[in-house]
């Protein structure tokens, strides 16, 4: 056997394992959501349940305030996404476009923020929210998540790829800094901007730990918290229902991604000297 073919086989084998490991939990989640409790324990690893039951979904949609939880989660994710995107773009623009004192030190300082582990931040943040009287409100969840150093960093790297001559051409034509940002930079970095926003949204959508600390009232729960209500530590977990909720939970980010995907096409960055 040629080395090339053998290498290819090894790689493909590796990829098949990787794909299986990635997809199996999802297949397992979806199939379990169509099983009743006895089937769950009888055929745990069987991905194709028979007969299929929709009871889990009717229970979820009927007796369970699913839409309240979706709305709670969406509201938090939307505010966080908009805020993080906006602040990332504006501060990255400042770092790229303006010259000011201590620019590099400020940027490096900002980079340091994402080396601080969340476990260190939890206590002070919790105390702060508590002092502000924001426990058990969406604002308490949102407030510490409004800005993101990683976002600033990524946006700055992207903006630096916009050729300087483009900015200068716009400035010479009388564009104010705001117009340089909105009319030249933003259209050019749109794909990266959208990809970033989607990441912000999905991260916030799936966030479990921080909302768990802040939100105590069941009505204010987000979806990941609601999910946990069906899994009890003492046994008697409603696996089918939990998986039905999990399936429904993963739908909105998926739809969002599908919707945005067509905008994430590679636009031409350089003005193109070559004909």
């Amino acid at each position, binding site marked *: 056997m040629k080395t090339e073919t053998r290498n290819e086989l090894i790689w493909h084998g590796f990829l098949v394992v990787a794909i299986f490991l990635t997809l199996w939990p999802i297949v397992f989640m979806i199939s379990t959501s169509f099983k009743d409790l006895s089937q769950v324990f009888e055929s745990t690893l069987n991905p194709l349940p028979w007969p299929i039951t929709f009871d889990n979904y009717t229970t979820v949609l009927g007796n369970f305030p699913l839409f309240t939880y979706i709305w709670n989660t969406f509201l938090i994710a939307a505010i966080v996404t908009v805020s993080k995107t906006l602040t990332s773009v504006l501060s990255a623009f400042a770092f790229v476009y303006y010259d000011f004192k201590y620019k590099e030190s400020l940027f490096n300082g900002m980079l340091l923020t994402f080396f601080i582990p969340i476990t260190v931040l939890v206590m002070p943040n919790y105390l702060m929210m508590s002092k502000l009287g924001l426990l058990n409100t969406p604002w308490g969840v949102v407030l510490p998540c409004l800005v993101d150093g990683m976002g600033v960093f990524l946006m700055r790297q992207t903006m630096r790829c916009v*050729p300087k*001559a*483009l900015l*200068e*051409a*716009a*400035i*010479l*034509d*009388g*564009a*104010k800094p705001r*117009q340089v940002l909105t*009319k*030249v930079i933003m*259209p*050019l970095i749109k794909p990266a901007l959208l990809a970033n926003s989607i990441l912000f949204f999905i991260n916030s959508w799936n966030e479990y730990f921080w909302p768990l600390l802040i939100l105590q009232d069941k009505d204010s729960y987000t979806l990941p918290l609601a999910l946990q209500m069906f899994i009890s530590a003492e046994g008697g977990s409603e696996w089918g229902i939990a998986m039905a909720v999990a399936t429904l939970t993963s739908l909105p980010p998926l739809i969002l991604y599908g919707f945005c995907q067509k905008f994430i096409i590679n*636009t*031409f*960055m*350089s*003005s*193109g*000297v*070559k*004909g």
Partner: protein
Amino acid sequence: MEHSIVFSHVDKAYGKTVVIKDLNLEIRRGERLILLGPSGCGKTTTLRMMAGFEDISAGELYMDGKVVNDVPPGERNIAMVFQSYALFPHLSVWDNITFGLVLQKLPKEEIEKRTYQALDILHLRGQEHKKTHELSGGQKQRVALCRALVKQSPFFFLDEPLSNLDAQLRQKARTELVKIHEMFRPTMIYVTHDQIEAMTVADRIAVMNKGKVQQIDTPDTIYHHPANVFVATFIGSPAMNVVKARIEGTKIVIGECAVEIPAEWLKIVGTRKEVIFGLRPEAAKPNFDNAMVKGTVDFLENTGNLKTASLTLSDGQNFFIQDSNQNIDLRNVSGFDFDWNNVNLFDVETEMNIGYVKE
């Protein structure tokens, strides 16, 4: 003073690296001034200071008679063509051209009038709805020109605008540029390292080297009477011959060959014992038996319209001679003759032109 640009003792430094030192330059209204020099000579920096993209470290820059050191680029009323063209890739040709006019909030009819006029001048009619990446290199260059044209600014800056075009397109674009300038007569400053571009486009050329203007004059004067050895050897292809020569009494010794110096030149030479003798290759007339300056042929070059021979003089210095006569064979040349009207003499120490006899 209107629409003129004056540099008065301008310095430019990046930290401790001084790139431009005591620049004095006066650009007249409506002229085509070319900033010419090798890369790194400060010509682009000079242009960018005028555009306002580079701070001025010391001295004053006047535009329209006013000091503009601290005036932001957008308020200087400049149209500029960038080397990379700097077309906005997300906009159509039309939106690229009208970008500045829309920002200025000009009335719609005015914008359309100017844009159609510019599109017609540059033969871009029918291309206005294309995206810039659908255009050829030459078209992109013309769109960039169009965008500068519609602003109708009194100042028109070009930073190596033709360097990305192939040779044939470049020549066409050159004539086009001059034609457009004649139409509107803005004060035009054009940066290039291409001497042919400089010679053909310029009213005046400012030759720069190491952050200093070496000479600023008409292309003719720059070519025939370069101010110093740098200018003499930078312009022309092959460049002007510059060889060391001794003065012995009333004779100049070039490559061990003594030539009588005319009386009026003797005054200019003065008491110097040594000079640098400068002569353009095409001013050295090939001689086949009894040349004024003798030399042996090293190699020949034939470019079709011109024949070039590289000679080695008796003292080992190299000398190029050029002739357009197709019927002679430079292989058998014994040396060259010259006419004193074509001679430039430079000081050995300062390398400056020591003067010439005015006809």
